[in-house]
């Protein structure tokens, strides 16, 4: 992750924009898109986004923004915050009715204050129709009662990252595709002195991804379709028992891991298998310091999707980000025009390419972006939007699903059981009780 250039980046319109502003309607490249929304006179926008995980993402977004400014004369200021700070900032903006005009938010955020967000159904439908439709998972995060309350921007894929030579050394010619085989592999790796490492700590991304995969792959779910808590089930029990066995193959300390620990441990050669975004591979591949050890690790790194459990299909949480417009913005048309421009081809294609597989497309047409085939390790991240399941499955998205995740109910349930602080049944009952408080039965 890069935290440099924290300064506010301003894309000033300047004299050129003034001259080009008049070309807005006439610009051939933008002619069709411009038909939808005409920015208000003197419109200025402020976007608050999460700090990029790969620099290419930010650079390209700003480049596209600059093009928008040049075409429309609308100045867009892009601010950034650490991704975990986005939720409280968005909450405050929604609550007080003041702040950035647009924001990139996470998970169920749009469902916590849907009435504070601008309805972008028209734009959502238009883009969906034009670009082959939205993937269901990201769309669920951005729609409520059939209306778009934001535009699904990207899914941050998560996949198994492993050391190929060590997997072979453990006697496996290929990485197992199912949970049973995966457990056997981890046991063999541990026996060879190459433990696995999955986050059982309060890591917002990695902790939740792993816990949800454990639960869902075994058929467990936090709530049913009506929002009734169903975590206390034989399927969950199986998931916990599986997690307990897997935990025995881990490097010590994973219960204290936050989001960065697995990357560090993997790149230091301490662990053989982790689950992470593409960033860990990119770090090794880019190898800024030309560390020969890291070059070797990068060559040995492989990625694949999380193993499939008894449910028989790939089901994962992933981090989903949605672009929302607050309805207090004085420039709703400019904001919509901006989003439209950024989601259109070639802007979106360029952004996906530059994001180096960190941001997976939410519109189906962009799935054929060459970036997914540019490196064999990229393929595992290509279908993130397709296989994801929204948080709080199978219940409705809203404050209860958000609060249950924010309170680490699922993460704690597994951590408590695997560390022996509670028996599986006890851990499950406690999770049920905690979830019930949010779903208020």
């Amino acid at each position, binding site marked *: 992750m890069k935290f440099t250039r924290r300064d506010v980046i301003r894309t000033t319109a300047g004299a050129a924009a003034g001259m080009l502003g008049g070309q807005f309607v006439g610009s051939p490249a933008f002619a069709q898109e411009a038909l939808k929304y005409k920015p208000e006179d003197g419109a200025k926008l402020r976007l608050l986004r999460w700090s990029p995980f790969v620099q290419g993402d930010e650079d390209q977004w700003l480049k596209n923004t600059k093009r928008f400014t040049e075409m429309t004369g609308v100045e867009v200021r892009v601010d950034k915050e650490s991704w975990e700070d986005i939720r409280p900032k968005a909450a405050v903006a929604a609550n007080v009715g003041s702040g950035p005009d647009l924001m990139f938010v996470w998970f169920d955020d749009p469902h916590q204050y849907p009435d504070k967000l601008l309805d972008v159904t028209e734009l959502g439908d238009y883009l969906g129709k034009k670009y082959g439709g939205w993937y269901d998972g990201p769309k669920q995060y951005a729609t409520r009662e059939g209306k778009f309350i934001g535009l699904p921007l990207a899914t941050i894929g998560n996949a198994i990252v492993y050391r190929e030579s060590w997997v072979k050394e453990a006697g496996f010619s290929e990485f197992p595709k199912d949970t049973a085989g995966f457990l056997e592999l981890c046991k063999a790796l541990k026996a060879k002195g190459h433990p696995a490492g999955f986050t059982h700590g309060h890591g917002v991304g990695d902790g939740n991804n792993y816990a949800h995969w454990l639960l869902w792959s075994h058929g467990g779910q936090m709530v049913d379709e009506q929002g009734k808590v169903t975590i206390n089930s034989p399927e969950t029990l199986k998931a916990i028992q599986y997690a307990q066995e897997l935990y025995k193959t881990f490097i010590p300390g994973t219960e*204290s891991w936050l989001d960065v*620990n697995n990357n560090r441990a993997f790149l*230091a050669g301490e662990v053989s298998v982790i689950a992470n975004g593409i960033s860990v591979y990119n770090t090794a591949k880019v190898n800024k310091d030309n560390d020969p050890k890291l070059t070797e690790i990068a060559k040995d790194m492989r990625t694949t999707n999380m193993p499939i459990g008894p449910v028989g299909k790939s089901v994962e949480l992933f981090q989903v980000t949605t672009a929302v417009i607050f309805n207090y913005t004085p420039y709703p048309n400019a904001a919509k025009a901006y989003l439209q421009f950024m989601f259109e081809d070639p802007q979106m294609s360029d952004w996906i390419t530059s994001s180096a597989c960190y941001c997976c497309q939410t519109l189906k047409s962009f799935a054929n972006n060459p970036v997914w085939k540019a490196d064999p390790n990229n393929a595992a991240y290509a279908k993130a939007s397709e296989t994801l399941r929204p948080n709080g499955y199978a219940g409705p998205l809203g404050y209860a699903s958000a609060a249950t995740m924010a309170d680490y109910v699922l993460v704690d349930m597994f951590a408590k059981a695997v560390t022996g602080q509670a028996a599986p049944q006890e851990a499950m009952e406690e999770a049920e009780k905690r979830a019930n408080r949010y779903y208020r039965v």
Partner: protein
Amino acid sequence: MAVTSAAVRPRQSILSRLSESRNVLGFGFMLPAAALLLVFLTYPLGLGVWLGFTDARIGRPGIFIGIENYEYLWSDSVFWLSVFNTLLYTVSASILKFMLGLWLALILNGNLPFKSFFRAVVLLPWVVPTVLSAIAFWWIYDSQFSILSWALQQMGLIDHRINFLGDPTNARASVIAANVWRGIPFVAITLLAGLQTIPQSLYEAATLDGASRWQLFRYVTLPLLTPIIAITMTFSVLFTFTDFQLIYVLTRGGPVNATHLMATLSFQRGIAGGQLGEGAAIAVAMIPFLLAAILFSYFGLQRRRWQQGGGD
């Protein structure tokens, strides 16, 4: 003209009387401070207390629900765990900070070479922003890359790395140690200031009477330092009880909530989880503890006999 002067004169006299009145002037001078306190202290505190009685969520003002939030918390094991953690954290860290801080203050009060230099250096942990020192501790306590584990392994004292933040007991001890490291300078420097106000003549008189070093400390230093100790430790307890940054950076309340303090739980539920009402209720639940610490100090400071080292 005469009419005009007659009309003006009484007004002037009221103004001049007001401007000479001690009470009115005193009230006037206090107004800005009172306004600041009202706007920035009383109002937010009152709002926080009110929110605790509502079901306010992010994006929704909420309605009055009485003590429902508190009823929920009463039956919430994570909340009670956070209360236990907060008390353990505050009591252990405060005792350690007091003992080590006093010891350090006594050393710095003695005749040391480079005294000024050492006094300045001691302040460093307090001066460094908590988030930065917390990140340093994060590395020190890392389960894979801890320098402590590495050093002990190199010395042959341990054969496996210490799981500082993964094991609940270790994690609690680790965060307490980090807090003590950060808090010692405040206690040490404040007590040092107190030590320097004790007249040297008292020590000389006691020495002439044949007092030992322990007796000098017990019957001269300690009684005269008590008022400073009371105020210093009150502040130290308040800072420790409301600590947030250290835990947030190091463990985020983990492992399995073993290091969650009331402040971090309040943030997690109120802001990250969006349950403003419940978050506020947790924060309000801290008030009785904080009030107790303040009252203890207040009444302690009022007692002349106690100040002078006597019993009740």
